[in-house]
């Protein structure tokens, strides 16, 4: 089955103790394939940003965040932090699509192809829906045209069923 990213909201906190009976709760929105990885990422960030380890903390809730409008085309702006071979950098990338999960998948694939950055070194810092006027990448803005028209060039003939597929066509 194809790799599919889902967005999860993980809420957790340090386990309450006598000295700290109501520790603050933290919420992380993370893109993962399943809840297990989502919780794992939650502790990864809690460790680094809030000095809370999994052994002294608890996850209170994991919820999947579904796409609100899967049939609307949107421009997504995605802020990334990633480790290259010689340092760690910030990046801003745009993706155009109907769902945030789809856009994130595109971004991970793009990071892998253009920058050889594997999944583990890419951190999604922020995601947002960008109105057309504020998009910065030509690749996205070239489709912001209500009178868009282009022909489909170099069409290759294709069978209409997978079972009729053949490597060499007579």
């Amino acid at each position, binding site marked *: 089955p194809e790799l599919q990213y889902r967005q999860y909201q993980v809420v957790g906190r340090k386990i309450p103790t006598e000295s700290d009976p109501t520790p603050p709760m933290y919420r992380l929105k993370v893109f993962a394939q399943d809840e297990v990885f989502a919780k794992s990422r939650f502790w990864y960030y809690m460790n680094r940003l809030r000095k809370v380890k999994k052994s002294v903390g608890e996850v209170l809730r994991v919820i999947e965040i579904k796409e609100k409008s899967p049939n609307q*085309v949107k421009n997504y702006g995605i802020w990334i932090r990633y480790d290259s071979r010689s340092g760690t950098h910030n990046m801003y990338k745009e993706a155009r*699509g109907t769902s945030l999960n789809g856009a994130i998948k595109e971004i991970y694939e793009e990071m892998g192809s253009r920058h050889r950055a594997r999944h583990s070194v890419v951190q999604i810092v922020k995601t947002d829906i960008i109105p057309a006027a504020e998009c910065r990448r030509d690749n996205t803005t070239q489709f912001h045209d209500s009178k868009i028209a282009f022909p*489909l060039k170099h069409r290759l003939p294709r069978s209409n069923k997978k079972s009729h597929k053949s490597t060499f066509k007579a």
Partner: protein
Amino acid sequence: MVFTKFVEVGRVAMINYGEDYGKLCTIVNVINGNLALVDGPQNITGVQRQKINFKRLTLTDITVKIPLNARQKTIVKAFEEEKVIDAWNESSLKKKLDRMEKRASLNDFDRFKVMLA
């Protein structure tokens, strides 16, 4: 070479691969160089609003005048005003598909009758 069929908002296309094979759909928006947002409209052709790859579309001569991101209601009205389904049934592609379907469904006796004709 001059191109006559364009991917544009309102272009009617036939889906040529997958579950919705043979059904008509209207291009409502273009997502990127590979994908379009397409709507049947569902009430008329049975194709839900969805994103689809251009590889799965065969563009037809028919275009419908609809605004970008038109709602299904608008597309249905435009389909009825411009008599898209009638135009499609007259088109050579549709007739060819019907002919192929008929031939595939013939039994041996029918083929014999065709042979004599």
